[in-house]
C-alpha cells in the first residue's frame, strides 16, 4: 500500500497487467520512449520492450483500428488516445468495429480492447483539450464506459477493464490526476498523497465494472456524479449543509442501477451532475431511469446540473464548469420543492 497520484495508479495497473499477461500491449501517440504526455506509460517500454509498448503515428483511426485487429488476433491492447477530444477520427473503428465484432460474428471474433482517454476540463485546455464525450460511448451497444474518480479506483478499474472480454472506454478525468479537485479553482488542491483514496494497493486487484460507490451517505437528496463531479458534489454538500447522499457511478455502462434506485427511494430527491454538455448528455439517461424506477418515491423534480450547451470555452472556463456553487444552488432548490 502506498499513496499514489492517479497517473501513477494507472501506470501501475498497466505494469501489473503487462507483467502478468504477455498479450497486453500498450501504444499510442508519444506513449513509447517518452512515456506519454501525461507520463502514464513512463518506463513501460524500458521494462517490457519496444514490441509491448511503442509510439504510434498520429492517427487515432490507425491506433484504434490496429488495436481492433490485434484484439481479434488474441492480444489485449490497452491504447491511449492523447486527449478524448482527439478521439473522433477513431470513432468509426470504436462504434462500427470494436463494439460489434462479437455480435456480428456470433462470437467468432471478439475485441478485448481498452481505449484510455484523458477527459474533462479544468486545465485551461480550451475546446480541444477539455471535452467529456462519455455519452457518445454510452449510446453504443457493445461498449462499456468507465470513469474513475480516484487513484485507488483507477487502478482497480483499469485492471478490470484490461481483463474484460469486451471493449472498454476508459475516461480519465485529467483534472483529478494530481488530486481530488472540487471545482474551487482559486484554492490549492489537496494532493492524493494526503487523501485516503490516494492509497493504492500493491499488485493485482480489481474494482469490478458495474459497481457504484457511495462517497457520502445522506438522507436528504441523492446526487449522481462521476469523475471530477464527485468532489464538486462533496464540496457542494458541505458548503450548503444539505445532507446529500453522493453516488460515484464509476461505470456508466453497465450501470449500477440498484445502488441508484435504493438511494433515491430512500431520499426521495435526485440531482444529477456532469461536466459534459446538458442536451443528450448521460444525465438525460440517468434522469429517465430514476423517473422509471423511483417515480412514486420522488418528492421533487429530478434536476440536472451540467456544462452549458456550448463548445468548451477558454477564458470563460469557470463560468462553464458546473462548480460547487451551481450544484449547491440546485441542491437547495431541490430541497425547497
Amino acid at each position: 500500500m502506498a499513496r499514489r497520484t492517479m497517473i501513477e495508479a494507472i501506470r501501475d495497473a498497466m505494469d501489473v497487467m503487462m507483467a502478468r499477461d504477455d498479450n497486453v500491449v500498450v501504444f499510442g501517440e508519444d506513449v513509447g520512449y517518452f512515456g506519454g504526455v501525461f507520463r502514464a506509460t513512463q518506463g513501460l517500454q524500458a521494462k517490457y520492450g519496444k514490441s509491448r509498448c511503442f509510439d504510434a503515428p498520429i492517427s487515432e483511426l490507425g491506433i484504434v483500428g490496429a488495436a481492433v485487429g490485434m484484439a481479434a488476433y488474441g492480444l489485449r491492447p490497452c491504447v491511449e488516445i492523447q486527449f478524448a477530444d482527439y478521439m473522433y477520427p477513431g470513432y468509426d473503428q470504436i462504434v462500427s468495429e470494436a463494439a460489434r465484432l462479437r455480435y456480428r460474428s456470433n462470437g467468432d471474433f471478439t475485441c478485448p480492447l481498452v481505449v484510455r482517454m484523458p477527459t474533462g476540463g479544468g486545465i485551461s485546455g480550451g475546446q480541444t483539450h477539455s471535452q467529456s464525450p462519455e455519452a457518445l460511448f454510452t449510446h453504443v451497444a457493445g461498449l462499456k464506459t468507465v470513469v474513475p474518480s480516484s487513484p485507488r479506483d483507477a487502478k482497480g478499474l483499469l485492471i478490470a477493464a484490461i481483463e474484460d472480454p469486451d471493449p472498454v472506454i476508459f475516461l480519465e478525468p485529467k483534472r483529478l490526476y494530481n488530486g481530488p479537485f472540487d471545482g474551487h479553482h482559486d484554492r490549492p488542491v489537496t494532493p492524493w498523497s494526503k487523501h485516503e483514496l490516494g492509497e493504492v494497493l500493491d499488485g493485482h486487484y480489481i474494482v469490478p465494472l458495474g459497481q457504484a460507490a457511495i462517497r457520502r451517505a445522506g438522507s436528504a437528496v441523492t446526487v449522481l456524479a462521476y469523475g471530477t463531479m464527485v468532489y464538486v458534489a462533496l464540496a457542494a454538500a458541505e458548503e450548503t449543509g444539505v445532507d446529500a447522499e453522493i453516488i460515484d457511478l464509476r461505470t456508466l455502462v453497465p450501470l449500477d442501477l440498484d445502488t441508484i434506485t435504493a438511494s433515491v427511494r430512500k431520499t426521495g430527491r435526485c440531482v444529477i451532475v456532469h461536466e459534459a454538455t446538458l442536451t443528450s448528455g448521460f444525465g438525460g439517461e440517468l434522469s429517465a431511469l430514476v423517473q422509471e424506477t423511483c417515480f412514486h418515491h420522488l418528492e421533487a423534480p429530478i434536476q440536472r446540473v451540467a456544462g452549458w450547451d456550448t463548445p468548451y470555452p477558454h477564458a470563460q472556463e469557470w463560468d462553464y464548469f458546473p462548480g460547487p456553487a451551481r450544484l449547491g444552488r440546485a441542491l437547495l432548490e431541490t430541497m425547497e420543492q
Partner: protein
Amino acid sequence: MFGWNRLFRKAQTCFGWGGRDYDGDAMAENAPLSLHVPEPEVRPGGTPDFSSVRIPKAGSVARPEVDAEPESIRDLAYSIIRVLNRSGEAVGPWAGLLSDAELLAGLRHMMTLRAFDARMLMAQRQGKTSFYMQHMGEEAVSCAFRMALEPGDMNFPTYRQAGLLIAGGYPMGDMMNQIFSNERDPLKGRQLPVLYSSKKDGFFTVSGNLATQYIQAVGWAMASAVKHDTRIAVGWIGDGSTAESDFHAALVFASTYKAPVVLNIVNNQWAISTFQGIARGGSGTFAARGLGFGIPALRVDGNDYLAVYAVAKWAVERARRNLGPTLIEHVTYRVGAHSTSDDPAAYRPKTESDAWPLGDPVIRLRNHLILRGAWSEERHKQAEAEILDSVITAQKAAEQHGTLHAGGKPSVRDMFEGVYAEMPPHLRRQRHEAGV
C-alpha cells in the same frame, strides 16, 4: 513570432502586396479558378472504349527477388503483371508455378463461385433473401489468392471475396444459411447477407462499413509479429474505398512497423456508379499509392488466375520472411451490378463488360488448360453441369432450414445474445420486456 514575420515579408515579396499598399488591379490579372471533376470516358449510350488502359504483353514484366529494394521496383506499380497471353499460353518469369491438378482445382473454384452467385441472385429475386452481391468477372482474384495462403493466415475481406471461402473449402451450405438468415445461419440472423465470418477458415467478419478492415489487417499482422508467430494477414479493399482514411492509416502503420501483411486493392473499375478515377485522382494507378510509403507495389492482371497466384505467392513470401508489407492492385472489371440494389445501365454502357480488354477469368483459364491438354470443351460443359447440380443440392438442403421470410429463422432471443460476453442487467431487462 519570428516565423510569422518572416513568412509575412516573404508573402509581401512573392505576391507583390503589403498591408497598406494592396493593389486590387493586380489581383484582377489572375485568371478565375475552376474545379476539376474527373469523368469516365464513356457514359450510357456511348461506345465502350478501354483504349486508354495500357496493357503490357503477357510475360513482359520482370520478376524481382522478394527481398528487392522497394526503390528498385517502382515500375511494377505502373505496369500489369500478366502470365496468360492471347493464345492461352503461360509465358514469362511469373509462369510455371502451378500443376495441372492445381489449375483444374482453381477452375473448379471459379466455376463454383459463378454458379453459386447465379443461384443466389435468383434466390434474391425470388424473395428468399433481401440482398446479394456477385463476383462475375472477378472470380480469379480471391480464388487464386487463397491458394497462396497457409492454414492460420487471416484475410480481412470485403463483401466481394467469397472466393476465399469457396477455394478454402468452406461449405456452400453454410454460406447459403447465412444468406437466407435461416435457423442454421452461423451468424444468427444478425448480419446482412454475404457478410460472412469464419475464423477457422481465415476469414475475418466482414463489416459492410468500407475500408475499416484494412487497418485491422495491419494490426492483426503486427500482433502476429509481436508474438513471434509465423502467420500473416491479408487486407482487401476496393478501388473506391481506397479514398477512406482507413486505407492511408493502414499504409502508414504497415510501412512504419513493417507488418507481415499483404494489402490487396481490387480495382474493378466501378464503385457503385462512381468510376475509379474519382478515388484514384492524379496518382496514375492505385498501386502507386504504396510508393510514397516505401511499400513494394505491384499491379496484376486480375482476370489471369496464374498471374494473381504468382503475385500472391511473391507477396506472401515477403510477409512470411518478415520483409514487410506488399501492396497489390488487381486490375479487373465488375461485370455485374454492384449489388442487387444497383442497376449499372444507369451509369455505364450496357456492353462495356464485353469490351473489357482482360477478358473473362474462367474462359481464359479454361482455354489455357485445354491448350495444356489437361481439359476439353466437353469436360468443361460436363463440369458446369456437375457444379450446378452440387450448388442446387446445397441450396435445397439450406432451404430446408428456412429462407428470409419462410420456414426456420434465428430466435428473437438471439438478437439479445452476444452483444457482450456476459449479458448486462439493462439488456436482461429489455429481453424480458420483449417477452423472450
